[in-house]
């Protein structure tokens, strides 16, 4: 930041800089060419007919694609220029922020946090669409016993890809679009702390998603999203795509986490002390801060899996001294914090929405913060409840049961905050507020069933059954995704300048929520009856429960399409939104649309928190 000021006179105008010539197109070209070259090179080193050798060839090619894409889109120009001592000029910095470049800046390595937010939004919606289509395939195959739509092989791939696509989408569904677009404005910052890292985190995610999708062409991911070793070591070449995608995704989320955390810690507007930070900012920060220690273990687990698959190490092979339990530990040490990485920002969005539409202050902000912090802290101590029945150490089931059930206390605080906010209120039931009610119903069911599962004797019966699938869909989809959709309806006017089509929103809301409850109440029944999860086919006993689930899935899927239409239609032709359509008191509603490059003409000074609603008693 200090060096470029001295060099402005000699540096080239951005018009002649390489930066102006690079975009997603050049990225794709360089990425694909790199992958092809690496494929061709490594094919001459390794024998393509040997399983382990194919894994080497594909892993190298996929990494080549990721690096090639980033080179092609210009991610490394800044560091490279710094290395050779010709740092970027002010004009180039301005160019990278995308000012005045219209729609094309969304396809560039753009450092403006608002552009990155929109990129995340579109990316996440695409992933949800793809994952949702796969969910429809899964439910169609299970519509009746017999597995008639697809072979078990394709079914297993659908389950794995649906799982990991949705998990990645949900990890970023709130912190990606809103954490990048809204969060800096909410705290009165002019941009993120590290704008170029911000762009890097998105484009890394993009390369990871493309890598993941390539799994279809190499035989799919037949292991479920958990990719348990040794099954993942045995799986075909499609598994390499999973491994590479997870490694890249872990880097992306670490960068995004460091960026958001630093922004919130260092770049708040004057007067925004810790007690005045909006709850969404706190939730999003806790979520990304949890991801920083959690995801490296996932990355490590996948690096070891890659070694097992390519060069024949035996990290997970009991035959040579490894252990499948090692994988399960590494995975769940990431996996259990990770579900709260998904949940907390979704809940925080709803806590942000509730006071605006009830016109009351958020009840007991401290309880909400304590609730989030308690969940975040405990979530690192509960991972082995996923391994009650794995047999690795039955004597530790007791301690893990204690920590797991303790999570119900901070979770209860979140409910208290919502209830206290609703209490004696007359809520304005706009679409965002409906999400709060859907959350209360869904997360109550998800939470109570979670208590059954945390109890060892009940888990002995329910573990690995459809009951578990239903439980975590209630928490992840019923709570976190509902929160994100409510957030989209809430911030849509600020992000696009237009109002979301209201009637379509309501229709979609009810279709999705009714359908969702049909799917997973049916699945609770199937699980109680004894249907294992991830099965391509099942006994006649479960036919009714599964049929109900499938009907619910079609309803939900159609409802999601209505929402998709509403978003696309409103983005293009929706009613022009006023600056503050909901009458909210947080900072993001003070800026006009289109939001200027550095958000605020004058840096705001904060004198109270954003929840000063209400008449005094």
């Amino acid at each position, binding site marked *: 930041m200090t060096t470029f000021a001295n060099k402005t006179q000699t540096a080239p105008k951005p018009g002649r800089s390489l930066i102006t010539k690079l975009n997603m197109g050049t990225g794709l070209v360089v990425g694909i060419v790199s992958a092809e070259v690496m494929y061709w090179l490594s094919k001459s080193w390794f024998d393509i*007919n*040997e*399983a*382990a050798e194919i894994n080497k060839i594909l892993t190298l090619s996929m990494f080549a694609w990721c690096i090639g894409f980033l080179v092609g889109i210009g991610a490394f120009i800044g560091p490279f220029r710094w290395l050779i001592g010709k740092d970027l000029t002010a004009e180039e910095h301005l160019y990278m922020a995308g000012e005045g470049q219209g729609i094309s800046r969304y396809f560039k390595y753009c450092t403006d946090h608002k552009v990155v937010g929109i990129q995340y939004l579109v990316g996440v919606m695409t992933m949800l669409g793809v994952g949702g*289509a796969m969910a*429809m*395939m899964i439910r*169609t195959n299970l519509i009746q*016993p*017999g597995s008639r*739509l*697809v*072979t*078990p*092989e*394709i079914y297993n791939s*659908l389950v794995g890809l649906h799982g990991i696509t949705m998990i990645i989408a949900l990890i970023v569904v709130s912190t990606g679009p809103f954490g990048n677009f809204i969060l800096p404005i909410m705290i009165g910052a002019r941009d993120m702390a590290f704008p170029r890292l911000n762009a890097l985190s998105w484009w890394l995610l993009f390369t990871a998603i493309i890598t993941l999708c390539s799994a279809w062409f190499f*035989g799919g991911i*037949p292991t479920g999203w958990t990719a348990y070793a*040794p099954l993942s*070591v*045995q*799986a*075909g070449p499609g598994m390499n795509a999973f491994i590479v995608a997870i490694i890249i995704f872990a880097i992306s989320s670490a960068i995004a986490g460091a960026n958001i955390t630093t922004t919130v810690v260092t770049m708040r507007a004057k007067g925004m002390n810790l007690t005045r930070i909006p709850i969404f900012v706190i939730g999003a920060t806790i979520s990304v801060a949890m991801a920083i220690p959690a995801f490296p273990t996932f990355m490590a687990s996948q690096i070891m899996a890659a070694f097992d698959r390519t060069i024949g190490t035996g990290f997970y*092979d009991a035959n040579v001294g490894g252990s499948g339990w090692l994988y399960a530990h590494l995975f769940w040490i990431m996996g259990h914090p990770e579900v709260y990485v998904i949940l907390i920002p979704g809940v925080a969005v709803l806590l942000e929405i509730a006071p605006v539409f009830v016109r009351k202050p958020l009840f007991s902000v401290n309880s909400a913060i304590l609730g989030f912090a308690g969940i975040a802290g405990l979530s690192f101590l509960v991972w082995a409840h996923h391994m009650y029945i794995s047999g690795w150490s039955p004597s530790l089931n007791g301690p893990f049961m204690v920590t797991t059930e303790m999570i119900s206390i901070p979770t209860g605080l979140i409910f208290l905050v919502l209830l206290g906010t609703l209490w004696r209120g007359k809520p304005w039931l706009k679409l965002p507020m409906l999400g709060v009610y859907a959350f209360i119903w869904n997360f109550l069911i998800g939470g109570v069933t979670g208590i059954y599962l945390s109890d060892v004797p009940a888990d002995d019966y329910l573990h690995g059954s459809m009951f578990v699938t239903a439980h975590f869909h209630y928490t992840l989809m019923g709570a976190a995704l509902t929160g994100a959709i409510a957030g989209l309806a809430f911030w849509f006017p600020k992000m696009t300048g237009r109002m979301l*089509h209201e009637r*379509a929103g309501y229709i979609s809301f009810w279709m999705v929520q009714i359908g969702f409850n049909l799917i997973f109440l049916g699945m609770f029944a199937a699980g109680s009856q004894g249907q294992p999860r991830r099965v391509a*086919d*099942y*006994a*006649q*006993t479960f036919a009714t429960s599964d049929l109900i689930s499938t009907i619910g899935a079609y309803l939900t*899927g*159609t409802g999601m*399409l*209505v929402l*998709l*239409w*509403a978003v*696309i*239609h409103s983005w293009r032709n929706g009613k022009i939104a006023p600056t503050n359509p909901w009458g909210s008191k947080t900072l993001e509603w003070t800026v006009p649309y289109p939001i200027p490059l550095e958000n605020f003409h004058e840096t705001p000074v904060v004198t109270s928190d954003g929840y000063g609603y209400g008449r005094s008693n």
Partner: protein
Amino acid sequence: MPSAVKGSSKVLLSATLSVLLGIGVVVGVGYTLNGASDDGRDPVVATMAGNIDTPKGNMPHATATLSVYADAESSEGAHGPDGGGHPGYVTYGPSNHLILPANSLITITIKGYDGGESLNTPFFGKVIGTVDGSMDVDGKKVTLLGMKEVQHTFTIHGVPTSTQDPLFVNIPLSKQPDDAMEKFDEDGTLPTPVVTTFSFYTGGAGEYVWNCEFPCGDGTYAKFGAAMSKYGYMSGKVSVVDHI
């Protein structure tokens, strides 16, 4: 306000068409995946061979023949969605889908063209579920093979339900001598097959699966990857139907 009405009906039309388009895309994906699930081979339908007296009484008799090859590409059982099998994959043929009559005596002949190494567990060396617990290998009655005498197994099992009779059959196939396999590797000459014949009873109609329990998906963990995890090579289904 005709223009407003017109505007709102236009919006409704656009919404409906968009949703239908979305449904169409998903249905298209389903159709494609369904197509990819069909490898284009005709199922093996058992041939009816009159009625026969069995210890369980007089019942229809049906026969079927399968083969198992060392290389899906070079064998006469070449198959796959695109006609040719994966090179180097072992495979059953001519199809992985077997259709059998219900409440009948079934006699299946399997011609084995492959060598072998060792089973993962001795359990699958046992003949299970046949009429008298034995099978016929090149004219000799056999009830058990050692772990290292097997080339593949033909193991039928299924999802037990209240509406479907249980069916479990396990047939280990005796392996080719090593020199025959060496010759095959050198010039592709198929060895003289080991012919295994066995009979079992079917119950009522139902859907079952079969797979090979011999670890023959070379090179990956427990040798159950590759051809073993690829549907249609060493795995398939058995439909027991009332009328053929």
